[in-house]
């Protein structure tokens, strides 16, 4: 007999007594109806911001990096801060889809699709910055090791900056493959519901998916192995990003704590961004029954954990700076908290260490409005963290005559704003043309994690003394 697993502790992951068909209807409908006013307004605003960002990128490339306020002392400013920030945000998607898959966390199914899309778009935003920062972008291919007419002169395989090139391009490719392979069966669902030109387009992108049992078996095998590969990959990416700093000899940078601390921070900011987006998306597309308060609470618990790890890392850094007895390191951290950029340090501490502690309260963890605002605070805090690490560590050089101060020009700010335009433009297009929730995967967990599943073969629960359940065949 078919047994349904009902946990007395866990909340249902799909609410509202859905049938398989109702799930298809609910999740496909945003892609099948005309966009609402809110979407159009958001899309136009995103396009305008994107256009402004492109103009600023054009100015940078046309006139050179001189349009930024970087100087001889502070060679990394907004560019690398934004790069690390976006890469960090791009970590939650793979964490949700890969690590939580390996841990058999069923709640991932409600949010994995959108989180993976977010990952891909965030990595695109991140990748822009190092490329523009090269100055002469038309020579960007010099970072790739290919046989060339310059010797052949090779890249430096011992450099963390080159490891970054490999890590981020691999991460982007694998995330894209993982995401798209998951999307194919759902695109087939859209294809089979569409007519006319839309059917032709969805036919093309659905790759001829039929739902054959053998294909599903291979698809599951592929997903599992890709998850197994993506798990160490996602941990390696921010580890390697942290090597950009940790392998240098700059006080405040060359610390061995960086890899785990960066990874925790990346997951922290990534989940905050997932929450910001999903809270808006579930409201906009009426998906509250799929992205439930239980999902919000689960993500808030991860935020609380990773936020606390980040907090411990900040304090460990301070302690080790003092304990090392190394005056340059001690000065770097004294200056970090009490120097000219004290506001960035305290912004970081308040947003990253103090604010997630509110989530010890179950009531606040389950408050959508509170979570939304807190997720924005966390992302501001994580931006400050990268600014603190990069700019504060650089602005007091070994030679006091080189001491400097950095504030961005409008061009630098414009490029940063432009990446929001890119991110939201892509996300809004994605939310319009593809299912934002993995339809097949939700159907897969419906019977084991759905609320009062009422379709055929539903299990009716009698709350008798023995807690036994009984299966009832529905009429055909």
């Amino acid at each position: 007999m078919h047994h349904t697993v009902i946990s007395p502790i866990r909340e249902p992951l799909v609410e509202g007594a859905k049938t398989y068909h109702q799930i298809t209807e609910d999740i496909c409908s945003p892609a099948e109806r005309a966009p609402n006013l809110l979407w159009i307004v958001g899309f136009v605003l995103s396009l305008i911001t994107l256009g402004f960002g492109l103009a600023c990128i054009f100015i940078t490339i046309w006139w050179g990096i001189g349009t930024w306020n970087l100087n001889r002392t502070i060679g990394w400013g907004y560019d690398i801060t934004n790069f690390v920030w976006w890469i960090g945000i791009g970590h939650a998607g793979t964490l949700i889809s890969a690590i939580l898959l390996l841990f058999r966390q069923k709640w991932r199914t409600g949010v994995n699709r959108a989180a993976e899309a977010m990952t891909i778009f965030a990595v695109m935003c991140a990748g822009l910055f190092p490329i523009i920062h090269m100055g002469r972008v038309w020579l960007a291919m010099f970072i790739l090791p290919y046989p060339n007419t310059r010797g052949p002169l090779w890249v430096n395989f011992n450099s963390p900056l080159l490891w970054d090139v490999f890590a981020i391009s691999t991460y982007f490719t694998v995330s894209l493959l993982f995401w798209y392979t998951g999307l194919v069966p759902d695109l087939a669902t859209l294809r089979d519901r569409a007519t006319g030109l839309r059917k032709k387009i969805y036919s093309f992108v659905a790759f001829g998916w039929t739902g054959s049992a053998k294909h599903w078996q291979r698809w599951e095998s592929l997903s599992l192995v890709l998850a197994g590969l993506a798990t160490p990959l996602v941990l390696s990416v921010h580890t390697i990003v942290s090597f950009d700093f940790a392998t240098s000899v700059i006080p405040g940078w060359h610390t061995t704590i960086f890899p785990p601390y960066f990874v925790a921070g990346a997951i922290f900011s990534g989940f905050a961004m997932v929450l910001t987006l999903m809270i808006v998306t579930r409201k906009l597309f009426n998906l509250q029954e799929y992205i439930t308060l239980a999902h919000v609470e689960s993500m808030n618990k991860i935020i609380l954990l990773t936020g606390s790890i980040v907090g411990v890392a900040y304090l460990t850094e301070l302690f080790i700076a003092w304990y090392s007895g190394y005056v340059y390191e001690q000065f770097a951290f004294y200056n970090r908290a009490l120097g000219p950029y004290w506001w960035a340090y305290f912004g970081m501490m308040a947003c990253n260490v103090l604010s997630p502690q509110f989530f010890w309260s179950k009531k606040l963890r389950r408050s959508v409005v509170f979570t939304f605002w807190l997720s924005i605070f966390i992302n501001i805090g994580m931006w400050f963290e990268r600014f603190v690490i990069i700019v504060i560590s650089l602005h007091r050089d070994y030679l006091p005559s080189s001491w400097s101060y950095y504030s961005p020009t409008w061009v630098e700010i414009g490029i940063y704003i432009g990446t929001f335009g890119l991110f939201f433009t892509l996300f809004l297009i994605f939310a319009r043309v593809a299912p934002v929730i993995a339809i097949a995967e939700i159907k897969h967990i419906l019977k084991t994690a759905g609320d009062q599943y009422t379709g055929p073969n539903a299990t009716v629960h009698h709350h008798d003394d023995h807690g036994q359940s009984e299966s009832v065949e529905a009429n055909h």
Partner: protein
Amino acid sequence: MKTEKEVLFGLYNDEVDLMKAIKVAKDDHLEIMDVYTPFPVHGLDDVMGLSESRLHIAGFIFGALGTLTALGVMSWVFTRDWPIIFGGKPYFSLPAFIPITFELTVLFASIGMVVTFYTICGLGPGVVNPILDTRITDDKFCLAFETDGLNTSEVDNLKRFFNTTAAAEVHTKSISN
């Protein structure tokens, strides 16, 4: 050359009914053409007697290829083609090669597996495979038999099978081979 084949298929409303039907079909030694479902049904491959997918073996081979490519190229470049001393380190500095080696292992394994998956499944951009019913990607579970070369009594036997196994609908369709 395009050839057509006749397919008789039943649509079930639930995966539990489908699984029961497959068991009956297996017991009756009926030759199932294929089973189509809207989502991966747990235990379906066991009931159908599908052998385990060997896709992960392909993944391992591609991954090993990535490892060897990365280590090989970096070692050759830094010890043979253009040896340069970086910070007094040896030419062959294995620890510094690990990050790129790891990334290329993952990259090769992922791309290789995904390409293998689409190739062996006959899927790809623009591919159009025959669809028996558009609701298979929604909420119908389909069990299909090929009826070419079967006589009337054998086809009737299959129809009877669908009736006794509570198929919600039974249809025939000729699809291109």
